[in-house]
């Protein structure tokens, strides 16, 4: 039952009363790649913050790798789910690249040797091996996005959850990030507006609109349904 995400009848109401998610159900199987699309404010980011227990459902249940998201399981679930935030300046909160990539492994109480090995491997995987001692602020957006992914790869997550990985990147940085994601054999749930990324990388698409799941199906079927896309403010690639 590893590498899976089960969301059952999830409803979430923000403290101010705004209903961000209404009766959302979603199931992602092992090594499946699912794209989460929909207009701004549809609830995509709110849903993602439920997958590692930052937010807890007002009603309904979230299960990750067979474990329900509860206070008892939260440490294990955060090690399994690598959540990469949209803005790398939120994700990279240490001055130095090394410290950010080491943050997760250090909190898993791994020995120093292992931490260093994982930092090297993670930076290597995203092509940033020469930047361990750089100051995050001085990196370009594309480099920051890569380092942000390295900060969760160093935790050896079973599931990657990415929020807008290609937003704001120039074509070359975008292409190399897509190649990077394509090389990863993992369960992947990605929120994006980039429909060409969806067509390139994902086998399944979930449309979230107005706090509800509006459609869920194979990428080919969804992207060829022009009426459905238009209805939810999306465009075919």
């Amino acid at each position, binding site marked *: 039952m590893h590498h899976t995400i089960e969301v059952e009848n999830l409803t979430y109401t923000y403290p101010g009363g705004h209903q961000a998610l209404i009766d959302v159900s979603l199931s992602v199987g092992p090594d499946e790649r699912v794209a989460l699309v929909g207009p701004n404010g549809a609830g995509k980011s709110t849903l993602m913050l439920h997958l590692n227990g930052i937010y807890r459902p007002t009603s309904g249940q979230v299960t990750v790798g067979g474990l329900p998201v509860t206070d008892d399981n939260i440490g294990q679930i955060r090690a399994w789910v690598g959540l990469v*935030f949209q803005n790398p300046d939120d994700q990279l*909160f240490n001055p130095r690249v090394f410290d950010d990539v080491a943050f997760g492994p250090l909190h898993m109480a791994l020995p120093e040797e292992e931490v260093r090995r994982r930092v090297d491997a993670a930076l290597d995987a995203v092509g940033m091996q020469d930047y361990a001692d750089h100051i995050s602020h001085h990196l370009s957006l594309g480099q920051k996005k890569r380092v942000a992914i390295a900060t969760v790869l160093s935790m050896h997550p079973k599931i990657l959850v990415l929020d807008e990985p290609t937003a704001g990147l120039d074509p070359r940085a975008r292409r190399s990030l897509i190649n990077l994601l394509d090389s990863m054999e993992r369960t992947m749930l990605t929120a994006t507006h980039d429909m060409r990324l969806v067509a390139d990388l994902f086998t399944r698409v979930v449309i979230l609109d107005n706090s509800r799941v509006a459609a869920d199906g194979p990428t080919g079927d969804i992207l060829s349904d022009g009426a459905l896309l238009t209805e939810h403010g999306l465009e075919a690639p």
Partner: protein
Amino acid sequence: MIQLQHLNPTEADTALHRLDPRVKLIVALSLILITGLMPSGAFGAYIALFALMMAEAIIARVSPVLVVARSLAVLPFSLAAVTLIFTGPEPYLAALPVTGWPISEPGLVQCVSIVFKSLISVQAAILLIATTHFTTLLWAMSSLRIPGVLVAIISFMYRYLFLLADEAARLSRARDSRSAVPAGSPVTARSLIFRARTTGRMIGSLLVRAFERSERVYNAMLSRGYTGAPMQIDPPQLCPRDVLIGLIPVLIAASLLAISLII
């Protein structure tokens, strides 16, 4: 991108640059403490301490003029000491024209002492920053067992200072881009109060943005297993030679303190 050059160490690679950051941090803090403890009016000792700072600057190949110039930034904060001049005890030197406030001699001495002491303390901190990279300094703090939460706060300050400075620059660029003037008007058509209000709103918006960012950053920390417990890689042993080098300025300053307390 805003560059806060003052926060970066100088390019030179001197003995002071290479000294263990933990030693430098303790030396700088000790020098500041000793300076603070100096009795009021010990001007000879202040000059000696100032000379010590300048000697360090020369060893570190940092321009002494630059160190003094940057330390002047503390002067506005010393303003609080000015009240001492008018509230101090007798003897009075003179009275201020117009208001007639008496100028107290001991008050004046105290005020000038505080200004000197704050300048010297800031110079010690400037020399520390000029010879040590901020990230190294953070490492030194945590390996000296300074509580992790404090180190984390200082680390965030450094990390997000740049971003906030960028954000402030973007806000004021956006304001300037829309601050047009009708044809034939002077440089600005609006009153000082109007412009002050705009600036006030910008500061408010910066505060709200910083607050919202702090929530997102905290979520990113939680996502990677943050529990509030301090985490770090064990620091290497201190090298005795570095400790010895560090002792020299501290001992000089401490003996100055002892002498001026006795005299």
